[in-house]
């Protein structure tokens, strides 16, 4: 299963992190720092796998990352996933982001924190890959944002009108 998904920028700032086994906040930060330290030491044009992650993760945890512009997209997983498939999955994730935000850049990722989670949740649930078609993901995400805007509009009305009036 997938153990964690992280998006870290090239300066080491986390942009998104999701751990599929509970980790306390300090531990999460430590893991992110550790991963960044490993990645930032790797030159470009080398393989996208990191095998020796030290003892922080389990012994058979592997890491796949991809470097896009100013961001590292990182997937951590155990040996019931295929490395190349995970690489493809990063591609799917990034493609979907690209479609959602129309040529995605780091700022989009920064300011659309919850949408990032929505997209990721459509692709991965509980460490299991559920959807690998970015069109399908897009459809679901659009439905959700429609749902969001409609309900939040409703609350806006509710908020401005006193409760006795609404009745």
């Amino acid at each position, binding site marked *: *299963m997938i153990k964690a998904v992280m998006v870290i920028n090239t300066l080491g*700032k*986390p*942009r*998104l*992190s*999701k751990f*599929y086994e*509970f980790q*306390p*906040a*300090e531990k*999460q*930060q430590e893991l992110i720092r550790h991963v960044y330290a490993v990645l930032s030491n*790797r*030159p470009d*044009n*080398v*393989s*996208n*796998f*990191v*095998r020796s992650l030290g003892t922080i993760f389990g012994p058979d945890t592997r890491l796949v990352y991809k470097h896009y512009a100013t961001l590292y997209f990182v997937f951590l997983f155990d*040996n*019931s996933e*295929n*490395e*190349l*498939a995970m*690489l*493809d999955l990063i591609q799917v994730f990034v493609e979907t982001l690209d479609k959602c935000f129309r040529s995605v850049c780091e700022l989009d990722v*920064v*300011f659309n*924190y*919850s949408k990032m*989670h*929505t997209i990721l*949740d459509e692709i991965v*649930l*509980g460490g*299991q*890959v*559920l*959807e*690998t078609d970015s069109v399908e993901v897009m459809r*679901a995400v659009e*439905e*959700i944002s429609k*749902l*969001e805007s409609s*309900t*939040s509009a*409703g*609350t*806006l009305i509710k*908020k401005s009108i006193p409760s006795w009036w609404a009745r």
Partner: protein
Amino acid sequence: MAGPSLLDSLFQRSLDDLIKGLRLYVGDETSFISKAVDEIRREIKSTDQQTKATALQKLTYLHSIHGVDMSWAAFHAIELSSSQSFNFKRIAYLAASLSFDPSTTDVILLLTHQLRKDLQSPNSHEVSLALHALYFISTPDLARDLTPEVFTLLNSNKGSTRKKAIAIILRLFGLYPDAVRVCFKRLVENLENSDPAIVSAVVGVFCELACKEPKSYLPLAPEFYKILADSRNNWLLIKVLKIFVKLAPLEPRLGKRLVEPICDHLKRTGAKSLAFECVRTIVSSFSEYESAVRLAVGKIKEFLNDDDPNLKYLGLQALTVVAPKHLWAVMENKDFVIRSLSDADANIKLEALQLVLAMVSEDNVVDICKVLINYALKSDPEFCNEILGCILLTCSRNVYEIIMDFDWYVSLLGEMSRIPHCQKGEEIENQLVDIGMRVKDARPELVRVGRDLLIDPALLGNPFVHRILSAAAWVSGEYVRFSKNPSEILEALLQPRTSLLPSSIKAVYIQSAFKVLTFYLHYSISTKGVIPSASQGVADLMHGSVEENSQFVKTGHTDDGGLNPRMLHRPVRDVSVESFEDMSVAHEWLSSTSSKVEPITEESIVNILNLVETTLGPLAGSHEVEILERSRNVLGLVELIREELPGYLVKREEDNDKGQRKTHEMIKLIAEAFSEELGPVSASSQERVPMPEGMVLNQSLDDLDAICGGLVLHIPTSFSLGRSISSEKDDVTMSDRQNKEEFESTESTSLLAEHRKRHGLYYLQSQKKEIVYDDYPPANDLKTGENADDEADDLIKLTEQSLFPKKKANQAKPRPVVVKLDEGDGSFIPAKKVESKDDLISGAVRDVLLGDEATTSSSRMKSDKSSSKRRQKDKLNIDKSSGPKEDSKSMENSEQENALRRSRRHSRGKEKKHISTPKDRDEHEVGDKQKVSHHHGKHKSRQRADGALTLAAQSPVIPDFLL
């Protein structure tokens, strides 16, 4: 409350504002964040949902990105989750899933009702939110309470919901094994679904389950096989292959069926991920199918020649897997592997290194190590140490199995120690000492290498080499009889720069100096034409003074400080015999080499004694007890000799008066004690020492207090003693500082000059290597063409051979004897204990698959009576809810039954072929149960079907419709 809340909501900062603020803020982020958190603490209490939601969203962001604690806000998230608004609900569930800790957040239970409601919601996105949250926060209680809802969702007609429910089921099984009984069947049914996404989700779940305990899922092999044969979905196929990797070792007949479709996929697919998975499956699980392996290796070759470093890396990785069984595959790609050692990618380099070492055998170990050492010299420190570590590991495998020429290996170890980045001191130390003890023939070379290391003052400055030096010192002391020039070693051991060593190693140095000094003195006595009297001493020892000898052996033990315990358990007679042998060996050697070495004069002895005294004098007041004791031992010996020194050597022949003889006798005895053989000791030998009778190890030592009570009074005296020591020491250091300076000025220059003269500058690495290599012929040559000493060695070897009959014979080139321990040196690996939870799951799975729900242990029934009650209730609910589908379900059931009956017929046909008493018994049991059970007709039929499954599954083979 309304006032502030309204104000808050009007001027509240949104998440975007917070992020912008953070980005613009210059200076310490933490102060900004703590201010923001204070703000959030206020806002989150608001009764207005919008305000609360925004506050919670901000807090979640800060928690997830900046690691801010938000455990205090758990209740607010739960509050908000009941909101009507999808948006707020989403924010609440996201907060919950990112921050709740299932083991400590106690308010989670309050969510049960809300989650249940949302799981039943008609809006699939709401269901999805609840499922996500359930995955992250579920506790055993929550899992138990919500299992029925998830069970219902397993049949949802919306594909997206159904697959999400399937994905979540894994977590429920893990937390609440009884959920297996409820959901497993429906999960299996979903394998037949026409939607590949759903099948993929189910297979994903089984892949995880099979990783933990593959055996229970063997009966499902036919279903997986069908997917493997029919599906064209790469994700799905990868997961199925992963499952089969787990199942294959359990059922050898699977291989025959599986190899063909896997090879087909491998030939057909253009997807690299699937191709790699096929390759990995073949090389790891089906390596006995030659043609499949050839195909896989062909694919690996394609990967290696690809430009993508990922494929190169994975190709090498696959080769590593294939290497143990099909070394030809590595050999075919040898050039590529060697070239990869200098790749830019660290991953590829490491993988290549593993492969290079996989190719090592007795014949090429020398060449490969030479190549690797060259690479190590060129590469960065990290990889250099990686290489060295791998060489050390490979060469020492199975007690140096592949080493034929130990002289070469020992000099290689010496060479490694001098590589500038070398940080493998500990391992090299262990191997040097280990070889010394195990391989007699390697000892002369060991001493030579040890001498080269010791004599080099530059090495003392490198803390990574200290451990190696410790081994070198020990070896030179222990096997000093092979040394060409003991006084030189003594000088090296006492050189001034040894002050740079840590105290534990310094102690080894001093102890070694003790041994060398003893040997030197003993040698000085015996070379003065007194060989007869020496052997007479040995003869004395043989006759009369056995007790004395054993006494000395014991003191030898205590001196040794536990570095390498002598063989205590050996009978005394053995010891004396062997020491006699050793002695004669030493004597013969001495007599044969004495002509080469300059004769020892009284003057040289005086010089040596002076050197020892000036160096060790200051250490006699050391705070380190090891150093203190050992240096005092040496000084004691020096004092003893000094008393007798006038005419120590000259008068020896004419004067036989007692005093002199006593000294000589003493030296002889010490030397004999030291020349006793040390052997390797098994790590578990301590356990095998029988406990003496009447000894109670776990006796309470409380009584000691009463006895020791009197002793406590003496503390003041020990205080005064301490002071006296320190003052004494002050004096000593005062006087010795001068001595030391003198000594340094003379000795260090002489040493350095010596060292340079015979050694060349070690900084000229490459040249030096050759010198080392050519200086001495390998041991084997030495043995064939030299002197009497070797005959004795051969003798020892012969006896050794009779002692250790199980070693390899009939090798073309004689390999030195390597002493092995009886039960192997491998450490004991405790059997892995299976986690109880997994046990529960697999137990439940077996129960479901085998259908004997009735056999659930009564204890479990008792322990969660409530839960089982609820389960029954749930079942009823389910039956009601799935009322309209009842017909189709029963249809399915009967179909299934038919299939199973078919399988039963098959297995019955088989029964003739092999005896299957346990199966029969099972059948009886099932039959009995059926009689006992009070279920109505439908249940009965299901159970019968399950009974058939029992047969299929409990027999050690797979149902025949696969094979």
